């Protein structure tokens, strides 16, 4: 073979390799998927409703103030906004014309009935683990809903992320349709938890750091992540890598009621408890906790840019202590001990001591209520302080609570507060 020919052959081989890599997730997708008959028995619909709760479909597929499951909610990503779609059985604008096979293709392969690859804002890298039987049950439930006309809204993504090619590259990099193999070494409870956390619950989607292209490094999964657009941090799920039985029981209570002895949910997690987790059975919540407590420890937070020393912060701490006594101590206690299940303690509270103070700042400035749940129907609320505390005062009191009563977290600056 002459030299030019050899170069040509090598180039062709490279292109072929790249093309097959690019097409890999598609090659794992069978051309024909069998449509199982749609079973609309009450039992099947009820099962589907429960599973749809576990997947929190309603959370994204409902616009604020809009009809449930009719879509239209903006999902913010670093690459632009995509809009959730209408999954009511409306034949024109919803999924009324779909079969169980079409729905399974979307859940398992991330592809719509019309052949379009779906944007991974729809968490199919997690939903791919949902079994066919559960997918069919969810579809049956959705088909039992009243149809609502609500047309698709085109995504508003920036170039080059708006191209089909970019989506194909993303899928080749980060997505493989797969089933979750049960771990025979672990019990049924742990395996059920793995299925809920890795699959329907799609916990990883928020609670993991994402790379520049929006992918999740499997080694860093569940180490905590930043929610684009929302201004909240999703904390690591098992920060220490171990959890005592008491901590596990607390976590179970937090997930099903929104409040525990140690803390309360806020921000997007309050949404998740309100629309999803409070409706799960105690067994499933227990399974989720059993799995979460075996997740690897989060990597240690990078050393703070602002090392704390009481001497340098003497004035700030004195100001913070005064503000704390006047505005916080009535509820949270003189020593940050709080009142269990009513006012969360601040001593030893991970929301208070998180490396990034984002969630803490938002809780203090904007206030909030934990969600109304079956276990806590009339929650106590945290007042908003945005109208009462300037940035410097807020920073002082936050620095005080982050460094008192055994808490040992980096100080907060007025800039941090203003950026929240």
């Amino acid at each position, binding site marked *: 073979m002459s030299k030019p020919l050899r170069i040509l052959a090598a180039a062709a081989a490279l292109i072929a390799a790249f093309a097959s890599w690019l097409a890999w997730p598609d090659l794992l997708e069978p051309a024909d998927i069998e449509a199982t008959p749609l079973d609309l028995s009450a039992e099947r619909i009820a099962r589907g409703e429960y599973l749809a709760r576990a997947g929190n479909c309603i959370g994204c597929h409902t616009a*604020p*103030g809009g009809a449930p499951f009719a879509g239209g909610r903006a999902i913010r990503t670093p690459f632009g906004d995509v809009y959730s779609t209408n999954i009511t059985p409306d034949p024109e604008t919803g999924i009324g014309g779909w079969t169980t096979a079409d729905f399974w293709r979307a859940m398992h392969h991330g592809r719509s009935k019309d052949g379009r690859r779906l944007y991974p804002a729809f968490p199919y890298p997690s939903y791919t683990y949902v079994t066919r039987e559960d997918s069919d049950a969810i579809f049956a439930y959705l088909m039992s809903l009243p149809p609502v006309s609500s047309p698709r809204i085109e995504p508003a993504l920036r170039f080059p992320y708006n191209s089909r090619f970019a989506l194909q590259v993303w899928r080749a990099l980060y997505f493989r349709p797969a089933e979750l193999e049960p771990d025979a070494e672990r019990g049924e409870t742990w395996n059920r938890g793995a299925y809920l956390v890795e699959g329907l619950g799609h916990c990883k989607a928020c609670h993991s750091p994402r790379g520049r292209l929006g992918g999740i490094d499997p080694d860093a999964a569940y180490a905590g992540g930043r929610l684009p657009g929302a201004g909240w941090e999703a904390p690591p799920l098992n920060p220490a890598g171990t959890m005592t039985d008491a901590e596990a029981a607390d976590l179970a209570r937090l997930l099903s009621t*929104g409040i525990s002895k140690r803390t309360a949910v806020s921000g997007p997690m*309050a*949404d998740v*408890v*309100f629309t999803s987790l409070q409706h799960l059975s105690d067994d499933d919540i227990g399974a989720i906790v059993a799995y979460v407590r075996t997740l690897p420890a989060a990597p240690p937070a990078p050393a703070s840019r602002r090392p704390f020393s009481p001497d340098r912060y003497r004035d700030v701490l004195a100001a913070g202590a005064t503000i704390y006594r006047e505005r916080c101590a009535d*509820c949270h206690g003189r020593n940050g001990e709080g009142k269990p299940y009513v006012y969360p303690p601040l001593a030893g509270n991970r929301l208070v001591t998180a490396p990034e103070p984002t969630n803490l700042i938002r809780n203090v400035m*904007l*206030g*909030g*209520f*934990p*969600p*109304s749940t079956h276990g806590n*129907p*009339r*929650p*106590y*609320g*945290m*007042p*908003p*302080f*945005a*109208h*009462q505390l300037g940035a410097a005062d807020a920073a002082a009191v936050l620095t005080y609570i982050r460094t008192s009563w055994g808490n040992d977290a980096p100080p907060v600056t007025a800039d941090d507060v203003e950026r929240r």
Partner: protein
Amino acid sequence: MEAAGTLMHRTPLLVLLALCAAALTVSASEQSQDDLEMAERLVACASCHGEAGRSNSETYFPSIAGKPAGYLYAQLEHYRAGRRRHQIMEGLLANLSDEYLREIAEYYARQQPKWTPPSLPEADARLERGRKLVDDGDPELGVPSCRACHGERLTGIAPTIPGLLGLRPEYLSGQLGAWRTGARRAASPDCMAEIAQRLSPADLGAATAYIASLPLPEDHHPAEGPPTSLPLECGVVE
């Protein structure tokens, strides 16, 4: 024998009456105990709307004590659904149940409002125009008197039409301005939006200055409702 028989006969009735009285006393004290507990649950609200919903500060935040429960519930629901916009209100209410919102609305509806006179210039030239709009409306603009819907005494009509007294002029004109631009909306047909759009900004300012200058009457309660006839079609009373 006759007398004793009557007394015997009446004893169950007396016992019943005594039990009723006891029950009433208990429910009265329970209610205030409930209100104390609600106040604790709702410190988040008090930080802007004042203790028991009586905002008497020089701030924008309205008093909500004594407003009709149906009106308050509708507002809470609007904020939760993002139909009425306010970052803090939307965030606070995002995950509260219908039942809890109703309970919150009922709690504030049974609180006693308090009136602090606003500092308005004594001879405000706008007040005469404002009085005319409030009392008579302006037929040429197709604007009815405020009293036609908000009650003869402007204390509202239960359960959904709010009273207008005891609110600061900045708040009142802010709301009407928001209705005029579509930033605030109510259930359709939105009669308040129609009226706000028929009035000029100067007229809105005059009407709200006049309303804010009126004292809150001793009996602040909204009139019994629902209203029988309104000059416009209003979605909120449907």
